[in-house]
């Protein structure tokens, strides 16, 4: 414990944390006119999507064009891909912590934020795919009936939400410490980073198990499916992050070292 570490009591955090959230909200709604134009466009897309989902809930899933022959369509396909993105994004974290590559530290948080955004998208896709979203509470343990450990979907619920919580903690902690102007205590985030790396492997493996356990689907019914999903995820995730880093480089003043993009994590 160095002298410059200040010990805050709970009362301090209760008053300071909302300030942090207020600042974060102010900062993420602040930018140039092109930023506002982009955000407005995204908001319009979101509202159109929400409206479409509302119609789906009211009129039934027949509007999606799915049928009994192929009962899972674009929702679950996108869900699977984005789980892979979430898993792969965290792979960029490995060089920073295992190889002690200095350049990578700035981009670690991009990987973590990608993981959070992806998992939120996954959870939304799963809810959009439900025929009866009003019965969502049936899946909650103790209140409903949670068929764990028999159903792979319940494992998926656990690992996806756990992954979201771990990454929210890491990002929230690092950003809050930055806000306070204090150095982050490595005991509060480094174990979680390592846990997040291992957990990333588990989320995509469990998603693969959803498919590979089905005897009636011979194309999926193989032990190879989980390694295959992981391999493609570890390509897609870092690829997406490299693209994001290039965009950040060109459109913002955040410095991205060459090392982040040129040294592949694996």
């Amino acid at each position, binding site marked *: 414990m160095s002298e410059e570490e200040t010990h805050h009591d709970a009362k301090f955090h209760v008053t300071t944390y909302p300030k942090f959230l207020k600042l974060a909200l102010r900062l993420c709604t602040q930018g140039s006119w092109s930023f506002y134009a982009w955000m407005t466009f995204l908001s319009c897309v979101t509202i159109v999507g929400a409206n479409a989902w509302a119609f789906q809930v009211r009129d039934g899933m027949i509007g999606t064009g799915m049928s009994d022959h192929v009962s899972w369509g674009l929702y679950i396909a996108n869900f699977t891909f984005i789980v892979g993105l979430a898993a792969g994004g965290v792979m960029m974290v490995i060089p920073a912590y295992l190889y002690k590559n200095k350049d990578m530290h700035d981009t670690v948080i991009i990987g973590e934020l990608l993981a959070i955004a992806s998992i939120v998208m996954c959870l939304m896709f*799963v809810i959009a795919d439900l025929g009866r979203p009003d019965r969502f509470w049936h899946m909650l343990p103790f209140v409903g009936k949670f068929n764990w450990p028999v159903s792979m979907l319940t494992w998926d619920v656990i690992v996806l939400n756990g992954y979201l919580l771990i990454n929210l903690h890491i990002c929230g902690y690092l950003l809050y410490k930055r806000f306070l102007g204090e150095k982050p205590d490595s005991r509060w985030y480094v174990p979680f980073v390592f846990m997040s790396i291992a957990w990333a492997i588990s989320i995509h493996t469990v998603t693969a198990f959803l498919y590979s356990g089905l005897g009636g689907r011979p194309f999926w019914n193989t032990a190879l499916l989980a390694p295959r999903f992981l391999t493609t995820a570890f390509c897609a995730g870092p690829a997406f992050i490299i693209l994001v880093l290039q965009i950040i480089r060109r459109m913002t003043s955040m410095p991205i070292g060459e090392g982040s993009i040129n040294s592949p994590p694996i």
Partner: protein
Amino acid sequence: MSAENNQSCGSGCGCHGDKPSEPSNLFDRRTILKGAGATLGVTAFAKALAPITEWTKDISVDEFLQKHYKELNKSELAAVIKRMEKETKENYGREVNISAPKPQKGVKFGYALNLSVCNGCRKCAEACHIENNHDRASGNSYIRVLEMSKGSMDMEHGSADYQHPVPQEDKFYMPVQCQQCDNPPCVDVCPVEATWKEDDGIVVVDYNWCIGCRYCEAACPYHARRFNWEKPQIPAEEINPNQSYLSNRIRPQGVMEKCTFCLHRTREGQMPACLEACPTGARVFGNMLDPNSDIRKVLETKRVFVLKEELGTKPSFFYFFD
């Protein structure tokens, strides 16, 4: 690290000066525009989600909070059934009678089908459609009759949507419906235990517990499950009023359904509708635990086989050639 204190937000994040935590003037143009934009956005979002409020009007609070079938005691189940009969009268215009027959002791249902006499007429599928109050628009049925080439059991080349006179010379006909497996993959994958295997062997679905994730439909190797992609439409005069909770009551939108071996009939000692409609007598149904039943005779004397045996699902539906 103390140098960072002056700019506690790090580099390039767009905050101005070294006291970024102070709120800027509440009435500057940017804040007002942001507030207006946010209000507009929230209003648009609420308007966008308006169709959901129309839909929630159809769902009563009782239905929303209803417990799983296996957890309802007698009076709760009676109340639920009364509510359902009332809702059916309001929505479909027909008085119906919903029962809840329990599995009988010492009964395990089995079904056998004689492929040598099935002529592909699909009267079983039609009877199922009528008996089980299927949606008329989709022409749904739990039974699919596969037209297969003689000499091959390759179901991938079997056709279920033939439209010509039957029986064709070089084909045989294999109706497929839920096999009521002893090791059902659909039961294992359901995340909310909305489907389970009863003591008399029938795999059932609690239509008011199912969340509509369609995992069971993906898991079933026999394409036995059907999903209600929209609200079922049936004219009042075509509704079969003898219904039961777990089988042929009119299902709500967004839930799974499947063949239940007509448990509202078979648990009362009758035969399934498909068997009674079959003109060739190809179907044999009964209690496999009763040594004198027809199904036992078939199982003991004929060379029966099951579909996709290698998957280990242990179907209760047997096929044989005579």
